[in-house]
């Protein structure tokens, strides 16, 4: 689709992170901190292909530009242009889920019927690190079970769940 993005790997990653921040409500800084950015972009590319990923990132770019002059909010534009798109919606939702638990979920059957089966499209954990770096756990004030232990007796105290505005 768009040549420049394919040529410039770092800009692709930036756009992927910007979209991911929108999807998860974690900051780009926090997303980078997981060390999983490139792995998740590669996973997405590897399953649905770079063209579909680029299309999603282009739509996101366009929505960001359009929101300035639009009466709609960015979330509204994203719902209209990405989340309700038969091809891009399931991919966008998969990117969100991947950040939260490190799992690529098998795309729905309707997707593969419409856009073709993809090799490797099964439910799998991206890597051992992607499990321990899942953002669900900090979002609920807990540790990924089996890693990043909070310490003896910590469980007896009230939870410290980050307040999210």
């Amino acid at each position, binding site marked *: 689709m768009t040549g420049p993005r394919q040529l410039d790997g770092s800009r692709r990653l930036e756009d992927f992170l910007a979209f991911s921040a929108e*999807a998860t409500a974690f900051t780009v800084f926090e997303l980078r901190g997981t060390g999983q950015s490139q792995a998740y972009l590669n996973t997405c590319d590897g399953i649905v292909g770079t063209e579909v990923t680029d299309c999603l990132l282009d739509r996101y770019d366009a929505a960001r530009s359009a929101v300035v002059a639009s009466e709609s909010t960015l979330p509204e534009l*994203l719902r209209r242009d990405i*989340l309700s798109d038969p091809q891009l919606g399931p991919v966008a939702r998969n990117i969100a889920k991947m950040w939260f638990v490190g799992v690529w979920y098998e795309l729905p059957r309707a997707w593969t019927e419409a856009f073709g089966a993809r090799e490797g499209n099964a439910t799998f954990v991206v890597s*051992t690190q992607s499990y*321990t770096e899942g953002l669900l756990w900090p*979002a609920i004030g807990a540790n990924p079970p*089996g890693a990043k232990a909070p310490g003896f007796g910590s469980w*007896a105290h009230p*939870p410290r*769940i980050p307040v999210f505005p």
Partner: protein
Amino acid sequence: MIFPRDATRRTDHKAASETFYDVVVVGSGISGAIIAEQLSQAGKRVLVLEAAADEDRSLKGYEGFLSRFYAAASKDNQSPYPHNPNAPMPRSTDARRIWPGQPDSSAYLVQNGPFSSDTTYTRVLGGTTMHWEAKTPRMLPQDFHLRTMFGLGQDWPLTYDDLSPYYVQAERELGVSADVEHQSYLGATFDPGYVFPMHELPLSYLDKVVAKGVDGTFVELDGEQFELSVRAFPQARNGVPNAAYDNGKGYVPVGAVNTHQVEEGERCQGNNNCVPLCPVQAKYHAGKTLAKALQDGRVDLLTRTVASKVLVDPATGRVDGIEVKVYQDPESPQHTTMIMRGQIFVLAANAIENPRLMLASGLSGSSGLMGRNLMDHAYLLSWALLPEMAGTFRGTNCTGGIVDLRAGSFRRQQAAFAVDIHNDGWGWATGAPYSDLVDLVDQQNLFGAELRRALPDRISRQLLLALMIDVLPNESNRVTVDPAYTDQLGNMRPVISYTVPEYTMRGVAYARQFARQVFQRLGAADHTAYDPTDGAYLTYEGEGYVIRGGNHLAGTHMMGTNSRNSVVDAQQRSWDHPNLYLVGGGSMPTIGTSNVTLTMAALCYRSAERIIAQLQDELSARLQTPAPTELPMPTVVAAS
């Protein structure tokens, strides 16, 4: 305590097959490990046979389990452990709906039904204690006399008081954290001055939220009033040592057995992953006892060695040897068949594998009870959303529960039960928190900030009560074998026939009402839903329930007072084969509402004493009457 390097290579199969051991033990789980360790301490030569492909309990190997768990899309209780077609094991994800007359043989356990159990056990070095949760309540005094008191099940040939000193030994070995003041209920007593090795683990914040609503509530059953409270469970998990233990000598916890304890493993860190694997070995596993057993060189351990037949001398009934199949590559059926010999044999392979091996050897026993009376606690799950943030998904898998209905005269009518408050949310019932994330994203169409806000709202308020309900022995609940069903090595697989008894279902129905009442007290929204298409869905008096397996397998070589009502005696010695002990949960005539491992461990300490005495008796008898030349003498090694 460090697992000795190369302990699994100390001997080879050929040398072992040419050695006449004092005792040959099948299985390296907690029962086998305790017996091997006790016999080694008494100066005996022991061979332990393990079917799994594990080598030493190395740090690398342990971390390999952890990595496998991290990378597994399904995080069930077998997810850290490698698939091994030569020593296969059941997985909870195997369970399928069973149609009448069509056994499900698609996985290792062949299930005849009618009930499809998702019960599991783990075939690795250290056995199921690798994945267990490590809850260690003692049985209650009443549990030993259900036949006399209520005309139900079988009486034990032992009392609580008989077993009490062995419970003390087991609590030391497993490193139990508990406070006597909270464990002295419903008739359970402790010696004056007794304290557990470590103080009880703190209750979770979630437990305290539940306690606010539950403590001081009364329920009436069979005319008896029971006051409810949330209390800590005893756990085989390292906490804070009790300085008063052992008359003031204190207690030193055992941490990781393959690395320095300062580096890893001393005290529970709240990983919330007891099942399927504690990443720091704060949880007891049988590798800790094996490490001790292997210190002095009298215990040999062979892995990749699958016991395939118990060989019996038809003239004397004594066991001559254990036939084993030795493999190198878990994926390949290639193996060598050998025979291991000794004076006494111990089957410690668990309540399904022990009778499976005996029946596959053609040894159904004079009582006809081998493999019968299979028991496993029936778990009813009930789940709700609390009105407040309770910080679910923190702490050990379970710190507290309600145990006030574990005994009482109501047991003449319906099964007793204990209630676990699960710190890991609805995970067991619904696959939370993954299923919540998928629902919020894919069905509720939440994205970005809305999703972030919804996650704790949906997950951190979760309360799951797991109601563990007593199951009585029933001869038609059983393990058999059938030559039509074999594994890759040609060993016959276990065939399970199982029904949840009506007595238990009455307990299930009451337990569901009980859970509803707790939720009402707490103002929690009941989200419990039992799926009628689930293979474990049952109806009772018009209501549907899903019953989960507890992996507390028992009863299949029950102990009793004579060779007609039981398979083994009160020492777990076979009535039919005087030099054979079948040990573990299979020996338990009833299971009450106690997770079985601590009781199994106590029974094994008791059996170890008997085995040592039997070895001395047989040795004395030999010395008095000249031994027949073809029988090798047992090795005598001075105790250290």
